[in-house]
């Protein structure tokens, strides 16, 4: 399959996964293996370098790209501080910006996200901002130096699918960076749908982590993402906007003058 390039790195897998909601850290290596993901996100606030057994990083194979996120940041300044800590703690220079000052729906603050992106991109981070799909905000993220844009499909954890479809489609059509659909994807079919729309990748956490069998669910997502990408590349046949009516109202026009 065609490769995805983010921050100058070529990726074979277009499925990114989160680590936050699993029943045990011990299952994470098997999940990673079964879906062949290459990028794994984790909340830096959860990373504990002091305790080996509790240290999430111990469960992520070395060849995986770490995508620490700034979860817990309420504004740009805090996101920047967390990102710098992440780099200092040896998590590499990829960072997913998550600025959330709404604890009810966990919706991102686009304005603060743009500010943080600008500062961190200048400092050499590969910045992947999580955002509410909004065209102007996405354009500003491009200008600010983002490496990809991650619009939400639905609020975090809701597993409702791509409720923001029209807006995400606009980003896919208009923004020159990879669009990675993050949050809201609850089933493999929805991941496939995002990929068919032309998203470059999807990030899935809750749907895999809270499945009864996360390892197999991860595999199902991996197939779905591949299927969706292949469908996109093979150019989906144009869908008819309106079903052909069985008794057309304009049929008489073809029947010649009476």
């Amino acid at each position, binding site marked *: 399959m065609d490769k995805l390039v983010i921050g100058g790195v070529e990726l074979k897998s277009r499925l990114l996964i989160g680590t936050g909601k699993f*029943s045990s850290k011990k299952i994470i290596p098997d999940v990673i293996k079964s879906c062949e993901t290459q990028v794994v996100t984790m909340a830096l606030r959860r990373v504990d370098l002091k305790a080996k057994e509790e240290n999430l990083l111990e469960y992520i194979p070395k060849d995986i790209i770490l995508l620490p996120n700034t979860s817990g940041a309420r504004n740009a300044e805090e996101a920047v501080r967390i990102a710098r800590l992440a780099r200092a703690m040896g998590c590499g220079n990829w960072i997913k910006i998550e600025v959330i000052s709404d604890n009810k729906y966990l919706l991102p603050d686009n304005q603060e996200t743009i500010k943080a992106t600008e500062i961190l991109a200048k400092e050499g981070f590969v910045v992947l901002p999580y955002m509410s799909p909004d065209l102007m905000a996405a354009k500003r993220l491009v200008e600010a130096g983002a490496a990809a844009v991650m619009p939400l499909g639905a609020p975090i954890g809701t597993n409702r699918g791509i409720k923001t479809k029209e807006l995400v489609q606009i980003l896919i059509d208009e923004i020159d960076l990879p669009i990675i659909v993050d949050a809201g994807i609850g089933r493999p079919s929805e991941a496939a749908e995002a990929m068919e729309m032309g998203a470059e990748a999807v990030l899935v956490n809750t749907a895999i982590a809270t499945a009864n069998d996360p390892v197999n669910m991860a595999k199902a997502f991996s197939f779905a993402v591949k299927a969706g990408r292949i469908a996109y590349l093979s150019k989906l046949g144009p869908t008819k906007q309106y079903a052909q009516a069985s008794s057309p109202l304009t049929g008489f026009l073809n029947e010649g003058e009476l």
Partner: protein
Amino acid sequence: MSFYNCYEKFKNFDYDSFFEKVTESDILRILNKNKIDQYEFLALLSPVAENFLEEMAQRANILSLQHFGKAILLFTPMYLANHCINQCAYCGYNINNNIKRKKLTLEEIEKEAIAIASTGLRHILILTGESPKDTPLSYIIEAVKILKKYFDSIGIELYPMTEDEYKKIIEAGVDSLTIYQEVYDEEIYDRVHISGPKKDYHFRLDTPERGCMAKMRNVNIGALLGLNEWRREAFLTGLHADYLQNKYPDVAISISPPRIRPHAGCFEDVYPVTDKNLVQYMLALRIFLPYLGITISTRESAGLRDNLIPLGVTKMSAGVSTEVGGHSTDDKGEGQFEISDIRSVEEVKEAILSKGYQPIFKDWMHI
């Protein structure tokens, strides 16, 4: 505007006749709704809703998984002192109780911190009674500076302070505030708070809000169950949490549902709150406020705590001693109440894992 305005609306509310009118089909309809309002929350707290606990549990379980995943954050309280100038009828630290009083020195705090940190815990909650003379703000700040070396998150459960004092404490490294109203009913509040500064109902009621204004990251509230008819207190706690969350969306709001435990100088006048009641409270709350944190302490038994995990608990204490210096000294000050779940941190961790959940030791850091 203060939460008192919301409280006032329900001051003369006829709970009994409301509960009488709730029907089984009301409950089923509410359980099928996406978002429920205050009165629907109250209906879920009604006696009729007791017939639907399993349905409520299924719904609460799904909401909790979506919002928090299969993860339970662990922490432990650390009692710095048990001096108190208040006379709360239900508390062992009450000024009139003849107990052994103790205040940890800074060296003792460090020893205690080392002992607790060695169990793997990274989140700590510090407690004192209310005694500005024995445990002034300056002492708390010194304590926080030491604890910062050993813990990634520091919470406080102290006497109510002003917004400015909270700002200073946050500056020193505290990120979470726990402050219980104890009882929302104003008359009962006055009766059980016999003397001392805690008698000021309004100052206490507005304390969580002052914490939010000072920009605490987490604010945890609650009613001490048993001081009043639990359904009313549960309702008002939910309304209080909702009020704070709507007004301060950047603060993570959580609640604790503590039940009165035996202590030195016991308090007799307790309203019963059964395990079933506690479960109903948690479930109704989770359905009303899906994003809300719920903390369960070691006041509850090991068996019950394990069973509560899938119902929406997000945070649990473990390896608890309510005695001052209980983790590291032989010369302890007396405890605030008797704990029920006496398992070690390691045992609690294993129990959470065996329930199919991940024990989390660290969910914050000083940034």
